[in-house]
């Protein structure tokens, strides 16, 4: 099997669940993606997808309410396969209710999930293993 030219990484960080920490989530992602041999456009897209998923945790798992809870974000790349894990202790995700708005129905809101789906290859919700409630996995093959 041909080896990927993209470095392997495995990094995780905790963030307090609130909107003012979204900039720190982005900084963490940028820091990690700097280590990867991928173009800037793709790095920017991945940062957007991760920030949108983190925003969804603040908005939907916690209703944007104040909390001392933390979420964990784990970014792994192995043989060019990127996997991003999000772990939180908020309200359990109702998978059936997750959908983006119809893209031609122009109104504010509902675009975050659409962006994530546009950017990533796969989006999987899992029940989190203790102490986590939700575990979201975004993945993408970076070799393409």
């Amino acid at each position, binding site marked *: 099997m041909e080896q990927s030219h993209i470095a392997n990484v495995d990094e995780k960080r905790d963030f307090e669940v609130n*909107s*003012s920490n*979204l*900039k720190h989530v*982005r900084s963490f992602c940028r820091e990690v993606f700097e280590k990867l041999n991928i173009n800037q*456009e793709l790095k*920017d897209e991945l*940062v*957007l997808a991760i*920030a*949108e998923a983190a*925003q969804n945790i*603040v*908005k939907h798992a916690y209703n944007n309410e104040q909390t001392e809870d933390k979420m964990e974000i784990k970014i792994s790349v192995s043989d060019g396969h990127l996997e991003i894990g999000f772990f939180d202790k908020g309200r359990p995700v109702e998978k059936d209710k997750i959908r983006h708005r119809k*893209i*031609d129905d*122009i*109104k*504010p*809101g509902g*675009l*975050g999930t*659409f*962006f994530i789906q*546009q950017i990533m290859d796969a989006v999987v919700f899992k029940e989190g293993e203790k102490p986590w409630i939700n575990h979201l996995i975004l993945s993408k093959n970076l070799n393409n």
Partner: protein
Amino acid sequence: MTYKVTEEGNISTVHLDGEIDMDVTEKAKEIIMPLIEAKKEVHLNLKEVQYMDSSGISVLIESHQKAMELGTKVTLKEISKSVLKVIMMAKLEQILNLD
């Protein structure tokens, strides 16, 4: 995010600077909406906006729709490459007024 507003006749230009995410959307709306409600034509200069997410895009849609409702107009000026990409990803380039 920081901002500066300049006035010329009935046109108010809002120069936004920095990253526009969920944390600053209320502030962005507080700056933009009163200008629209005062029936000003609003130019949003996005040259110095390095990052915008879906929350920022929502502010652009809301501003555009409010302006249409009140018979005025919001035009996006000098849109940075990264913001334009997100606007296009949302398929809004034919909906919003881009200049």
